[in-house]
């Protein structure tokens, strides 16, 4: 009997496990730590679906259009169509598991989020991710008790196993005992974004090392849009990482301003009169970067939430206020909060088709580690949707296919281990990637970063994370235009000849980069 190996137990991994188990199939849910520690619990704002309950005439077609436009037409159209069509049922399913979405008059309430013209984001106060995770963890437990889902909650991914171009298993190491085993069966990667390549610089979890993705890249798994990093406009610095101030703060009325000549300049409202502070994240982050460089302007952008009502703070953003008070000793209800752009999400990643298959048969990927839904920029509220729908879709594809004849569990006799450099080298790599892949990029800057990477590899050796980092830089160099999160000051315009994903693949010791198939 084949057991499917799911690497990662956040939203995508749990949904994949539930879907497989419902279909009567066995799986292993393999994660560094229990699901309660997954990055998904940090997601705050909400999940998008055209439920059309706010009296604005929303539709799945509008959701599709906003997602494609937000991603500046790099997302996989077929995949986005399936995602947005399924979104209302996805949210209803989550509600049926007991997610306490905010409700009024007997229906789920939806709020405004960036880049969308309709109130489409369902939410549970300001801890939507945690609420989704709790409901999905409980649902998964049902199948654990039935013996269909086996938990491996302190286990790390070492390598995928391939035979004749097909993925037949994964090697996994128990971090408590140190023993390494080979689990046979197909593999679904739900291992999160590439935050681990940027230590201390992102809003993500510190348990994400980026290693699983980097190792797969080394093994020949095709990536796409690796240059597309989302800088969230409103983050605050806390020890060892960046802390997100949810986009819901602006959805509920928060305003961005900078001091100019002694006056508050609400630059987003002036420059973008329609969506104002709720332009897509790439636009807001870039504007913040630019206004700080303008004459007469201060060097800090503030998020002004002093106009929000008591009711909004209590009912819709209670955790946010406490969090800001804890870290900055500022009461955001009374005083504007200094904010800065920070790396928040990776639109790019493992390339899959609309059914979450990678270029290697038997290997699937879902959640933030994949690239198909968000193109050049992800809309707020679409990440949790993509993770839940992605996990389900990958599992359904497996359910529809014949079982693989695979060894169950064997002692691993190979020599592959997790190959990582020291923390200091990881930080050096993170810094050079950050320099090359900033909010504003240029060929010169990218080449400088590549040169530093050459030097780092020469002195420290080549590690999987360096291969993937190089692919990110080369992808950014290859895209000689500005699109979504990728802004090139040497090519500031969009070029529609380049309206296709950037593919990166490592083959025969070389990284190949190509725009379009």
């Amino acid at each position, binding site marked *: 009997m084949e057991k499917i190996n799911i690497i990662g137990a956040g939203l995508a991994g749990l949904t994949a496990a539930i879907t497989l188990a419902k279909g009567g199939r066995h799986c292993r849910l393999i994660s560094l730590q229990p699901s*309660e520690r997954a*990055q998904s619990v940090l997601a705050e704002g909400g999940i998008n679906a055209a439920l059309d309950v706010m009296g604005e005439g929303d539709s799945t077609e509008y959701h599709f259009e906003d997602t494609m436009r937000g991603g500046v037409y790099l997302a996989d159209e077929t995949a986005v169509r399936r995602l947005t069509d399924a979104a209302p049922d996805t949210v209803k399913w989550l509600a049926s598991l007991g997610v*306490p979405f905010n409700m009024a008059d007997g229906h789920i309430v939806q709020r405004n989020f960036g880049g969308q013209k309709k109130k489409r984001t369902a939410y549970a*106060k300001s801890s939507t991710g*945690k609420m989704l995770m709790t409901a999905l963890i409980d649902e998964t437990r*049902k199948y654990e008790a039935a013996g269909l889902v086996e938990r491996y909650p302190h286990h790390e991914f070492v390598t995928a196993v391939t035979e004749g171009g097909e993925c037949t298993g994964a090697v996994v190491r128990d971090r408590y005992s140190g023993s390494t085993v080979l689990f046979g069966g197909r593999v679904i990667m739900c291992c999160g974004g590439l935050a681990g390549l940027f230590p201390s610089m992102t809003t993500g979890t510190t348990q994400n090392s980026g290693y699983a993705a980097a190792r797969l890249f080394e093994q020949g798994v095709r990536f796409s849009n690796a240059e597309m990093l989302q800088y969230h406009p409103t983050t605050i610095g806390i*020890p060892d990482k960046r802390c997100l101030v949810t986009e819901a703060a602006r959805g509920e009325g928060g305003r961005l301003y900078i001091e100019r000549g002694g006056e508050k300049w609400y630059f987003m409202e002036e420059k973008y009169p329609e969506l104002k502070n709720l332009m897509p994240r790439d636009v807001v982050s870039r504007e913040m970067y630019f206004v700080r460089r303008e004459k007469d302007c201060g060097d800090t952008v503030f998020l002004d939430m002093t106009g929000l009502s008591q009711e909004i703070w209590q009912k819709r953003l209670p955790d946010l206020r406490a969090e800001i008070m804890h870290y900055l000793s500022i009461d955001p209800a009374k005083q504007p909060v200094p904010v800065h752009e920070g790396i928040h999400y990776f639109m790019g990643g493992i390339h899959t088709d609309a059914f979450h298959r990678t270029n290697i048969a038997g290997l699937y990927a879902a959640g933030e580690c994949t690239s198909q839904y968000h193109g050049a920029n992800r809309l707020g509220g679409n990440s949790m949707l993509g993770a839940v729908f992605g996990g389900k879709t990958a599992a359904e594809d497996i359910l529809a296919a014949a079982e693989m004849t695979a060894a169950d569990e064997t002692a691993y006799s190979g020599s592959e281990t997790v190959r990582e450099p020291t*923390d200091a080298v990881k930080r050096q790599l993170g810094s050079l990637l950050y320099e090359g892949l900033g909010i504003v990029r240029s060929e010169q800057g990218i080449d400088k970063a590549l040169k530093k990477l050459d030097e780092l590899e020469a002195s420290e050796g080549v590690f999987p994370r360096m291969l993937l980092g190089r692919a990110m830089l080369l992808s950014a160099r290859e895209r000689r235009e500005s699109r979504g999160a990728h802004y090139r000051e040497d090519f500031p315009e969009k070029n529609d000849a380049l309206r296709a994903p950037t593919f990166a693949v490592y083959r025969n010791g070389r990284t190949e980069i190509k725009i379009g198939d």
Partner: protein
Amino acid sequence: MMTFELDILRQKSAQDVPYRQSFMFETDDENAAVSTALTALNARSVLTDKNGEKALPISWECSCLQKKCGACAMVINGVPGLACDSKLSGLGRVITVEPLRKFPVIADLTVDRRAMFDALREMSVWAENAVAPSERTQDISYEASGCLQCGCCLEVCPNFYAGGSFAGMAGGVPLSRLIEQLSGEERRAVMKEYRRRVYEGCGKSLACRKICPAGLDIEKLMVNSNGAAAWKSLFRRKR
């Protein structure tokens, strides 16, 4: 610049003998927490203790560093809490750091909290059928869904021990969501589990009341669940 001494209870593995080792840590960051110190110590190219002796990296678990995942629960100055939520500036110059004592040690500050997750499975903490979304149940469900499964409430509890029948509030809080949301036979089954594995074992010391790092109102949830699962059914039986 502030200087702190972290006096850590260490243990190389479950089979080894525990020992104490102190480390010096300097920072000028008012927000630096115990997690900041542990991260910085482990990032040193060569870790040395207070006496300049070479030391092994300190084993501990962390993930979100912003009080939302429960990974870094440990005992700090004798009180369980999250390392990322424990600002150094409020802890004195010498700070003792120990693993949670209710769970078996894997190494240093890393403990195996599987007993907590096993209890949830044994108590069938899930909804068998679809839950009907309702405004009425929203607040309690939200509060009860916020449990981090960190184990701090179990650490202070005089009645809990790992593997025992009493699941503590790390079991009681998740059950509270189901008691609130479910109905009919399914709800009765969940309330039975609550009575058996939470209510009957709880000595009502309320030691857990103020310890929750997620700030959950454990007392409110307990009152709500006790009311539904113990008192109301008791009165019904008498009638």
